[in-house]
């Protein structure tokens, strides 16, 4: 991308100040998670019995938890697991959903079968399907990713199938077919390029939902094991101290809110920018 195009892209994306705010917050959260060892003031696991449940102060900005661990440091490290799981869920569900959606949209014979299964999965609330899958797979970070990827695949499938149905009727796909371009090539190159933007928008939203869902599962004790610090497990274990030390619950939750919010703001900005219908109307 040449600099002028990049500038135009950024201008469009950040036309709304809230989108810019979202992008900045997201960047801060991601960098903090990646550079956790450099940024976190304390070790996330360092227990200090004398410092239990200390309120926020100059030394421990977000206070300390029931083991005297620094809440801020745990949130920074927790972001690694929470965001990492979210990212993995996005990648896996994108891959599966895009494949299924392309197949359903392009081959009539597969369409009915795939879409019926999608309907069936979407007749169950996300969190319920997730908890069921984790229950049968066993509670671990990997299985949480697998379960949530399965839960969000149908959404991607629907979006991709819908776009594929539209794009496959466009003249250039027809032309490619007449020129003898093979079906797999048509699928991957022509259609995929055209459905890329709705998928990208969908990805940011699924990222946000996955972060929320992971926290919910961990909170229920049906997700990541409690000894791994994630924002969800922090709230779960802090729950019983909430009346004495609200900060052990409040700040991890705030981290979830900020992450989910910034992701959705960026997704919204992308959608506004990429949706030609909306663009013209404004």
């Amino acid at each position, binding site marked *: 991308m040449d600099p002028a195009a990049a500038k135009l892209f950024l201008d469009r994306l950040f036309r709304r100040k809230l989108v810019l705010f979202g992008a900045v917050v997201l960047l801060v959260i991601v960098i903090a998670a990646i550079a956790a060892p450099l940024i976190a003031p304390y070790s996330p696991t360092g227990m200090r019995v004398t410092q239990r449940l200390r309120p926020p102060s100059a030394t421990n900005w977000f206070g300390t938890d029931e083991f005297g661990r620094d809440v801020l440091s745990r949130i920074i490290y927790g972001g690694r697991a929470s965001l990492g799981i979210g990212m993995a869920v996005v990648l896996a569900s994108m891959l599966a959903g895009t494949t299924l959606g392309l197949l359903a949209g392009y081959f009539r014979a597969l369409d009915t079968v795939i879409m019926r*299964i999608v309907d*069936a999965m979407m007749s169950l609330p996300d969190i319920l399907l997730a908890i*069921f899958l984790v*229950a049968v797979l066993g509670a671990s970070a990997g299985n949480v990713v697998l379960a949530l990827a399965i839960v969000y695949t149908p959404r991607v499938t629907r979006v991709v199938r819908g776009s594929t149905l539209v794009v496959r009727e466009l003249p250039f796909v027809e032309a490619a077919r007449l020129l003898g371009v093979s079906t797999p090539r048509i699928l991957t190159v022509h259609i995929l390029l055209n459905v890329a933007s709705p998928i990208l928008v969908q990805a940011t939203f699924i990222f946000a939902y996955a972060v929320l869902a992971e926290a919910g599962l961990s909170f229920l004790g049906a997700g990541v094991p409690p000894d791994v610090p994630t924002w969800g497990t922090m709230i779960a274990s802090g729950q019983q101290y909430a009346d004495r030390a609200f900060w052990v*619950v409040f700040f991890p939750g705030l981290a979830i809110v900020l992450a989910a919010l910034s992701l959705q703001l960026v997704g*919204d900005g992308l959608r506004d920018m990429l949706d030609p219908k909306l663009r013209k109307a404004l």
Partner: protein
Amino acid sequence: MVAAIARRLAGMLAVMFIVATMVFFLTRLAPGDPASLMLGDQATAADIAELRKTYGLDRPVAVQYVLWLKEIASGNLGQSIFLQRPVLQAIGERAEPTFFLALFSILIASLIGIPCGIASAVWRGRVADQTVSGSAMLAASIPSFWLGLLFIQFFAVRLGWFPVAGYGDPGADLAQRLRHLVLPAMVLGIVNSALITRFTRASMLDVLSEDFVRTARAKGLPESRIVLRHALGNALVPIITVVGLTAALLVGGAIVTETVFGLPGIGNLVVSAVLRRDYPVIQGALIVIAGIYVLINFTIDVIYTLVDPRVET
């Protein structure tokens, strides 16, 4: 009309069949043998074999699958391993708080979401729209259990306005029980209002750009009438859909909120079943919840024919 309903019914059955199949085979993936799980560590091999026989676990999987489909079709969801009673009965006992919670939550969510969505569409791009859209996005970013914990701390513990948790003493009257639902319903209402707001806004924006809205303006009608009668009248169908489906998803999707508030509802039943590996209960609950969703979906389609004259009757 009859053909259309028949087609919808066939679709419903197909979805339920797939859910049942999915639930059955996924459960087989679970580690551990249900029989030994039920009997605990002390069980002898003979005991386990005995139990496997009573539950039909000794037969080939294909046979078990067919039998299970048959049972479901006849409305029998099996026996709970731990609760010593039929799954359907266990779900029925937990239905009340879940039902009222879903009802109140969707009412609150609609009361917030529909007016906000309309205002946001009417004043598109202005401060009102940005405030509403931003708030909706914020609401959709809040984990319900966290908001629940904050509400409990503030409204129940600090202010003492509402009970902290539970669903009242066993003998409590209905009003007493419903008081326990105020906070959880507020939490779910706020969180779910986001979707309804966004959806109402999008539907209203679509309709407001239609030619007939311009006709209504050309008639010299006041703006309020144009928005509420002409535009909303046409946006109602998609809005009813999203409200109905959100309500349906709340029946099984309130798990986390029910847990935070200690409500003995269906979600709570599922969580304890998961933690105890009580598979018949998990399977039964999934099938009942999917069934409710499919049924509400079907009902909405019927309502369509009532509010939208274009759908042929």
